[in-house]
């Protein structure tokens, strides 16, 4: 095949190791060390995907992350779109497609893995150009922990393109190797290549993406890794981006940044063109011209300035004071028309070329600095925004500060790495870097600006910017949004400053006062707003935001996927539930058995069977997920009296009491039963979902409001495994497993508990409490014995036909007794009184949390929603939970007629709805406006566009007198 543009020598590629690849189906050969574009250019492929909107042919523009044109889709097992080809390391056998500025997402499942890493370092150096390498070397020498991050797969930064430049007395290539070797030997230094620091957050918290392996070989090795870095000090050595210039046809394939042409040559040994015109407004391109000429190209140099700060390169034809006014060609550049900068624009001269290398000056890569609100100012000589000083605990070194020469960059790197003061003055910076001509827009002989591209990726030209200004836009932020400039994948790394410069030129005639600046934090003062033409500094930049370079969503997701997305909490008897074929319900993070279907049963059948067992015989369930908090202290009674709406101080030892806690707004927060273990000890239970919140709640009130109270809280949720045994035969089961215990009605009173040792020798605390209305016991044992006691109950109950039941049955049974479920029958707008639990709200206490709110107008007026039950007229109709209720006079004559067009006032909604085995019909719980005064009233339940008559009834629908709880 051969690669016509690859020189025989030069660069850091390995010509001996070939890499074959295809683009758009055509095969090519590159070498190890190539990127996709270096290999493509080596093969003479200059043209990439078309422009996104106008479909114009485009070519490789840069050699880095700022690339606006050359995007590939990497095909394979899983395709990835919108990869800048300029930074895509060439992988053998890769199959690529050029993309037209827009991607296509692969719809299959990505087989790759991604992970995260969290590290701390004393110094984080970002960028491994001369400044960063020098900084890392200096920092490592001080003995502190150093991490060096470089997005490229090679260290050296822009020096790689200029291997013959002399750094600290030796050629750049050798210098890079030398410093790298020193860093690799330092035990306290870690180098991460292929790692882009894409986010810089408060407290020097950095986020970086490491590209690890393309084809994972080992299970568990991530393809990409997101690093979270806490850095004591950050050294930003992120370099600078070269800009293009805005002239007609500046998007033709073959128009390339001068530094890119140099980089392809110096780093990859690729001469992108043989007949080159270099068009520049500053000194940096002189070296490019010289390098290209030395490599054998015929080179002309067009400099807009009358004179340069450096000598004209040998064997280069130099046109001072001239500008390119138009690139010529259809699919690629074949020539360029030049004209005098300050003379007659029609007086053009044509220079033939196959490569037009452009340098419009440099923009310091301040992205990470700006992400931290670091201030910027406009430097008229450098013609760019540069940092006004580093962010706290950060240093800046090299091009990122506008120090565009190597010795300066190295000196700043050394200073930053060793935390010494910055040796380079702003004055030196300017003289070292030369001055750049402020040339923002080059008129074309044709007079229009239609192919004067400012943002190549967004396909936007100077004409768009002009239009925005004419429409009334003054702020660069508006221009951005009017034109969409800077919103592409490159985020305006090149086009951003071009737009601002252009804007400063266009806004010359406008009143500054009405001109809102871009990103704040920039000292526009320097911008010379005295003349009426606002300087770019007064206009400001748009806001720099993370990420600096794009990051795949999956990398951010990391390992928290699938079952690992969120912990699934399980109880000690989990294996038993699984073995019994339980279906599970997610309650908070818990997996709770929902029901236990037997073969052929659906949920309704299973729940009916479980309900029957509990009401007529005996059933058991795993109650371990309830939150449990042990409370101790001589002020514990006082404390609980303030927390709960009802009284807890007088509860006798050995007894339990149900309590409700509310927020200060009076709304129900949680409920549960608390045990009085001793004068100064309680065991509080909470809802499954509320456990953590309640403990925090108790701690908050104690620590922040009542620290003087002697009381301590400890969560014991998992210390205890709880099995509920419910039903008329539950006494028999408990008697079998706890023979030492008097389980008789008198010996074991309702709402009391006893500590005992079970027949198995396992210590237990057994309580008589009911959430089903049936005679019921709760067997609490250490979590270590949860499974054993579950088994013992299973065996002990076998002769009575004991049946496991899940949360659904629990819900049915408690609903028949109108025990509310916080979060299902309440929603943050419900008070205990609304639930019909006036009795739980103490009248005599001086205060408890929530008490004051009940005196507010919204609580004393009529019209509050109250918990009642509903009986659908059709006893088989199970109302969907969530159904709304309306009065009969508000519904159409024929209830099945569907919804009337006008809003129909609602009086409440169904919170819980079941079929009751005990009643042999359906029923529901509902919150209904003034519900208790409506008992007996017929209203309509509305769902799915229909109305169904239901009758409002007292909340408790089964065993109103509570006869069953004693068995």
């Amino acid at each position: 095949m051969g690669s016509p543009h690859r020189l025989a020598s030069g660069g850091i590629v390995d010509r001996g190791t070939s890499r074959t690849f295809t683009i758009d189906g055509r095969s090519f050969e590159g070498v190890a060390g190539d990127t996709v574009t270096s290999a493509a250019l080596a093969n003479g492929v200059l043209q990439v995907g078309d422009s996104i909107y106008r479909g114009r042919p485009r070519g490789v523009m840069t050699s880095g992350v700022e690339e606006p044109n050359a995007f590939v889709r990497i095909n394979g097992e899983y395709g990835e779109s919108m990869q800048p080809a300029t930074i895509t390391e060439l992988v053998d056998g890769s199959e690529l497609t050029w993309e037209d500025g827009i991607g296509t997402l692969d719809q299959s499942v990505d087989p790759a893995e991604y992970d995260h890493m969290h590290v701390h370092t004393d110094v984080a150096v970002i960028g491994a150009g001369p400044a960063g390498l020098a900084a890392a070397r200096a920092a490592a020498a001080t003995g502190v922990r150093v991490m060096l991050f470089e997005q490229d797969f090679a260290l050296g930064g822009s020096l790689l393109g200029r291997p013959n430049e002399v750094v600290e007395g030796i050629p750049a290539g050798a210098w890079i190797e030398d410093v790298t070797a020193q860093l690799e030997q330092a035990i306290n230094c870690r180098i991460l290549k292929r790692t882009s620091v894409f986010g810089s957050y408060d407290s020097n918290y950095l986020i970086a993406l490491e590209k690890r392996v393309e084809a994972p070989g080992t299970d568990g090795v991530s393809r990409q890794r997101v690093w979270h870095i806490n850095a004591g000090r950050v050294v930003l050595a992120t370099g600078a981006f070269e800009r293009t210039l805005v002239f007609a046809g500046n998007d033709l394939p073959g128009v390339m940044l001068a530094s890119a042409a140099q980089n392809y040559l110096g780093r990859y040994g690729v001469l992108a063109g043989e007949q080159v015109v270099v068009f520049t407004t500053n000194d940096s391109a002189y070296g490019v011209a010289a390098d290209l000429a030395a490599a054998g190209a015929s080179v002309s140099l067009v400099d807009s300035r009358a004179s340069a700060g450096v000598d004209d390169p040998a064997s280069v034809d130099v046109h001072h004071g001239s500008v390119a006014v138009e690139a010529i060609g259809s699919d690629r550049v074949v020539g360029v028309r030049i004209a005098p900068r300050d003379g007659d624009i029609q007086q053009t001269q044509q220079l033939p070329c196959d490569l037009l290398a452009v340098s419009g000056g440099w923009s310091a890569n301040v992205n990470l600095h700006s992400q931290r609100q670091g201030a910027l100012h406009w430097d008229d000589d450098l013609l760019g925004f540069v940092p006004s000083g580093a962010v706290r605990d950060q240093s800046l070194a090299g091009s990122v500060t506008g120090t565009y020469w190597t010795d300066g960059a190295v000196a700043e790197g050394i200073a930053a790495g060793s935390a010494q003061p910055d040796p380079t003055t702003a004055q030196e910076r300017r003289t070292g870097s030369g001055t750049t001509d402020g040339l923002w827009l080059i008129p074309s002989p044709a007079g229009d600006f239609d192919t004067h591209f400012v943002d190549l990726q967004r396909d936007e030209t100077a004409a768009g910017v002009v239009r925005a200004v004419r429409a009334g836009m003054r702020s660069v932020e508006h221009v951005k949004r009017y034109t969409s400039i800077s919103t592409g994948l490159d985020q305006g790394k090149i086009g951003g400053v071009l737009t601002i410069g252009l804007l400063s030129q266009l806004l010359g005639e406008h009143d500054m006062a009405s001109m809102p600046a871009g990103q704040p934090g920039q000292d526009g003062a320097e911008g010379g707003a005295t003349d009426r033409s606002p300087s770019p500094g007064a206009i400001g930049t748009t806001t720099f935001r993370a990420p600096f370079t794009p990051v795949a969503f999956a990398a951010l997701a990391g390992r928290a996927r699938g079952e690992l997305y969120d912990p699934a909490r399980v109880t000690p008897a989990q294996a038993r539930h699984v073995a019994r074929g339980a279906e599970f319900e997610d309650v908070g993070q818990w997996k709770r058995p929902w029901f236990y279907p037997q073969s052929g049963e659906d949920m309704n059948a299973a729940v009916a069977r479980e309900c029957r067992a509990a009401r007529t015989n005996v059933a058991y369930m795993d109650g371990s997920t309830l939150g449990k908090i042990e409370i101790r202290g001589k002020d514990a009674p006082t404390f609980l009296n303030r927390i709960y709406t009802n009284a807890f101080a007088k509860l006798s030892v050995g007894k339990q009491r149900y309590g409700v806690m509310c927020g200060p707004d009076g709304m129900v927060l949680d409920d549960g039963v608390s045990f009085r273990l001793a004068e100064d000890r309680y065991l509080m239970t909470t809802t499954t979902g509320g456990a953590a919140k309640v403990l925090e709640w108790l701690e908050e009130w104690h620590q922040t409001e009542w620290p003087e109270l002697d009381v301590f809280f400890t969560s014991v949720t998992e210390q205890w495994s709880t099995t509920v045994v419910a039903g008329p035969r539950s006494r028999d089961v408990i008697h079998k497993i706890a023979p030492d215990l008097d389980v008789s009605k008198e010996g074991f009173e309702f709402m009391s508990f006893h500590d005992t040792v079970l027949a198995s020798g396992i210590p237990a605390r057994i309580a008589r409490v009911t959430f089903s209305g049936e005679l019921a016991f709760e067997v609490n044992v250490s979590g270590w014995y949860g499974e054993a006691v579950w088994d013992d109950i299973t065996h002990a109950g076998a002769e009575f036909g004991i049946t496991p039941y899940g949360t659904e049955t629990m819900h049915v049974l408690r609903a028949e007794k109108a025990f509310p479920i916080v979060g299902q029958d309440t929603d943050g707008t419900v008070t205990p009184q609304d639930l019909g639990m006036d009795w739980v709200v103490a009248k005599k206490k001086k205060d408890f949390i929530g008490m004051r709110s009940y005196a507010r107008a919204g609580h004393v007026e009529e019209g509050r929603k109250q918990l009642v039950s509903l009986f659908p007229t059709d006893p088989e109709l199970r109302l969907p939970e969530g159904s709304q209720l309306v009065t009969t006079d508000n519904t159409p004559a024929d209830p099945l007629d569907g919804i009337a067009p006008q809003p129909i006032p609602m009086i409440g909604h169904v919170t819980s709805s079941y079929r009751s085995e005990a009643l042999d019909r359906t029923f529901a719980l509902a919150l209904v406006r003034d519900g208790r005064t409506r008992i007996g009233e017929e209203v309509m339940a509305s769902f799915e566009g229909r109305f169904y008559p239901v009758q409002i009834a007292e909340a408790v629908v089964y065993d109103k007198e509570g006869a069953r709880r004693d068995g």
Partner: protein
Amino acid sequence: MVERTAVLERRRSPLQRMARELETGSSANAALREVPFLAQIGLRVVADTPSAAALEAALSGPLPEGVGDVTGLPGDRHVLWLAPDEFLLITPDEADGGDDPVRITDELTAALGELPGQVVDLSANRTTLELRGPRAQEVLDKSCRLDLDPVAFPVGSALVTLLGTVGVVLWRVTPDTWRIMPRSSFATHTAQWLLDGMREFV
């Protein structure tokens, strides 16, 4: 009376059923196992008060002084600092000659007497995982945001923190050995999460 050993045999630790999985997921680089049935007693007393003194007397040793402090080694009784007024006493499995959690809780409760404070048996509330090997720190770095460098997190210190989203006590026992103590209901998830992070080292 049932024999104590027979009772102890009926205990189940949260990860007992995952033992095989833990073994296959382990390697010389990073090995994970459960250390079950340690007696763990929660102590709530404010340092430098008579309450603290009472417990210190009963334990015949001082409570840890500040964040990270641990008073002993895994094989013996030791106390971890969790908060200025919260400590965790850990002793070996009763079946291995350690304490009966109930008894030691009662003893310490008695020692505290009427003084402010709290002694609570938490033995089953958490379990203990041990992660060991040269890559152990890297496995933890995948999900723990603390600085695990031996200088910042020295051997013999324990911190309460998050592993992924799960609250744990993290204790560096030797340079390459960590004890990780999640709440029991999170144990399965924590083990699966760690195993997932270990895959690349197997």
